[in-house]
């Protein structure tokens, strides 16, 4: 087996440091909530729909209570009170919160404990819905069986969910194992989730619950036709990351792009908001048995892939630590990394091999997500196709779990039908032709690959020491990741954060936390 030297003690030390980093943040998370979290709670209890302006009920309700400074007690508190005050259904209760003549200021009346009791059956129903989503999905997956690893992951992104469904089925026909619907460029900064089926979007298709249902139906059909399980994935990221996690859970998605820090670094989402939201999203993900895909690949699209390789590893430790704190299992952690080294650099392939193998060894139980070259792609589609082949070779040699396939048109447009077809074909070829290469070779003890692996681990450890020392807040402030600097109160969505009151109520979260 082609392994690289890996100092177990250093790895353990990295985990310790990452734990310290996450624990520091967790104490913040545990005392805060956000409009996103509260909307998720409402949704999970069963509130749905939009008004004639397209504003979701959950936004109307939560914004109203937030504006009134009442969020610290938890929207569940008010929901429970509405139920107790005679609402027929959760939907009715939520509508009262949103549109009712009077705002319930929570003064007098039922106590939080009474509100909790009133919600108890609904809390159970919410959990059941998530569990049913998981059970159905897993049963179906067992019945058709997934393809072998690395799973071949492709994206569809026409902007129109019906075209996406067609393209998704085409991808399955051509050999894909995982289909992601890329999200419209602007959605991650929307502080609400659009509603219903959508047919217009730039750079991708809106993530809506109805769209999830449409595409899930299509890939389920495809799985039956191809007699191979087709995984469905989307983005639990941006200002609505926890709401989307819930939508994905109940619609039976298999994976979600979900990262503890991506929004901060790449979408300029406020740190506080992002940390709070990622936690709740992951609590749902944990329960739903969804596999997350973290976004460390993105670091290398802004920073240099050789110089900053260790930041990917350091961030993976941190993502792992945050995920563990949200109850996510290692088997659900699709930590991300990418093949982004300048292809014209001497021995770039060896350098990529070192990193891929190192990550594979350090995170041995994790379904590692391996991302293709993008940054150095040009419009020469022929060369680009070869570049992807070398990426595939590293993927199969180091046994990555989930491989997002490179597209020869990467520098040109979102992938088209033929681009995916050709990519899947070439990948199939490389996987077959080189199937046992990883078992067959060994790396020289002190060669380029081994030295590189040692260097990356050492540098990651050094960075984690620094981050643990300064705390993640200040580290991000200093540009520790992706060369991007963010401040604690800057960025989008900060106003949506609230400190929890001592009697903050969220029975659903309590249940997800196992309390």
């Amino acid at each position, binding site marked *: 087996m082609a392994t690289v030297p890996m100092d177990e003690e250093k790895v353990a030390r990295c985990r310790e440091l990452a734990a310290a980093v996450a624990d520091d943040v967790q104490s913040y998370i545990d005392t805060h909530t956000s409009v996103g979290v509260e909307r998720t709670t409402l949704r999970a209890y069963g509130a749905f729909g939009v008004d004639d302006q397209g504003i979701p009920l959950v936004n109307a309700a939560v914004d109203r209570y937030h504006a009134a400074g009442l969020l610290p007690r938890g929207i569940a508190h008010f929901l429970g009170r509405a139920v107790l005050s005679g609402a027929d259904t959760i939907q009715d209760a939520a509508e009262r919160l949103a549109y009712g003549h009077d705002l319930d200021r929570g003064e007098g009346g039922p106590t939080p404990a009474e509100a909790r009791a009133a919600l108890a059956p609904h809390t159970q129903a919410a959990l059941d819905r998530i569990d049913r989503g998981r059970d159905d999905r897993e049963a179906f997956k067992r019945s058709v069986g997934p393809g072998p690893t690395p799973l071949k992951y492709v994206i569809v992104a*026409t*902007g129109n969910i019906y075209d996406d469904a067609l*393209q998704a089925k085409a991808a399955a026909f051509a050999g894909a194992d995982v289909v992601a619907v890329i999200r419209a460029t602007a959605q991650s900064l929307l502080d609400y989730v659009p509603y219903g089926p959508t047919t217009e979007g730039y750079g991708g298709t809106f993530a809506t619950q109805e769209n999830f249902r449409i595409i899930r139906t299509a890939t389920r059909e495809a799985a039956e036709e191809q007699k191979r399980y087709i995984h469905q994935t989307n983005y639990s990221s941006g200002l609505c990351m926890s709401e989307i996690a819930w939508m994905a859970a109940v619609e039976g998605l298999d994976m979600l792009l979900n990262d503890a820090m991506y929004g901060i670094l790449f979408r300029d989402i406020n740190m506080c908001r992002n940390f709070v939201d990622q936690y709740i999203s992951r609590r749902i993900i944990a329960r739903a048995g969804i596999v997350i895909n973290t976004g460390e690949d993105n670091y290398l699209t802004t920073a240099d892939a050789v110089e900053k390789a260790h930041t990917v590893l350091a961030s993976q430790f941190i993502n792992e630590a945050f995920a563990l704190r949200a109850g996510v299992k290692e088997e659900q952690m699709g930590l991300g990394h990418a093949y982004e080294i300048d292809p014209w650099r001497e021995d770039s392939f060896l350098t990529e091999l070192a990193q891929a193998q190192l990550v594979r060894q350090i995170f041995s139980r994790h379904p590692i997500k391996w991302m293709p070259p993008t940054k150095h792609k*040009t*419009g*020469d589609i022929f060369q680009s196709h070869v570049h992807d082949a070398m990426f595939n070779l590293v993927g199969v040699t180091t046994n990555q779990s989930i491989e997002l396939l490179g597209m020869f*048109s990467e*520098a*040109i447009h979102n992938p088209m039908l*033929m681009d995916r077809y050709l990519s899947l074909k070439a990948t199939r070829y490389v996987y077959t032709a080189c199937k046992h290469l990883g078992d067959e070779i060994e790396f020289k003890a002190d060669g380029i690959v081994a030295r590189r692996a040692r260097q990356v681990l050492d540098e990651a450890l050094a960075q984690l020491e620094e981050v643990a020392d300064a705390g993640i807040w200040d580290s991000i402030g200093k540009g520790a990741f992706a060369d991007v600097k963010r401040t604690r109160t800057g960025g989008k969505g900060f106003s949506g954060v609230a400190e929890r009151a001592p009697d903050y109520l969220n029975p659903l979260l309590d249940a997800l936390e196992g309390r």
Partner: protein
Amino acid sequence: MKPTQPPSKILRAYGDRHGDGMVQLSFVLELPPSPRAREAAKRFAEAHGLREPLVAAMEECAEGYSFFVVYGHSEHSVDAATIDVPEVRVEPLGREEIEHRIKARLGRKLVVVGACTGSDAHTVGIDAILNYKGIAGDKGLESYKGFDAHNLGAQVQNAELAERARALRADAILVSQIITQRNCHKENARALVELIESQGWRGEVILLLGGPRIDHELALELGFDAGFGPGTKPAEVASYLIDRLAPGAVVKHA
């Protein structure tokens, strides 16, 4: 029998969304890379009917020459319903059925003579059809009791092929043509038909043409009875011959 015609169906190219007409075009122009060259490539693409051409790549591939990759929305379409191509539609018979029909209906061996003709030395294709070994698990005509298969090999001149076939009283002549540079295969194939016609025995023999750039239509055009393209299996050829010489097999011409 004719296959069912599909309903009139105007087809445009398809990439991202239905009807987007997306096509990819690559070519070389004698200009070094420059904004002017990029514009030339754009106009060149437009001349082909590509709207909003995007010059994705422009690279100097030789001194003074640029290689271009262009994407664009093609304004062209084809109506699939108006296309009616002659097809050899053979539902291949099983080995036993083939042997049986030859024995029962013909009562003698079917004699076939094949060659790769002219200056062409690519025998792999004709070998695949004639020799015992066959291709992809399907054994060649030589493997059938009912066939008497003669493979004359590479670079056989038309005159020699005609002579040998005549001498062997061949039921069919199988011609393979692989090299197609500047259409040399067409001339060579046509010349054989003319030779046999001039000798007056065209009616007595079935002429088959095969090769990676051959299709049934082209073969008919060149005066052959049928044409076989890439991926042909010996059993298909056997089935076709039996349909012609010991009729009753399921052979359809579209």
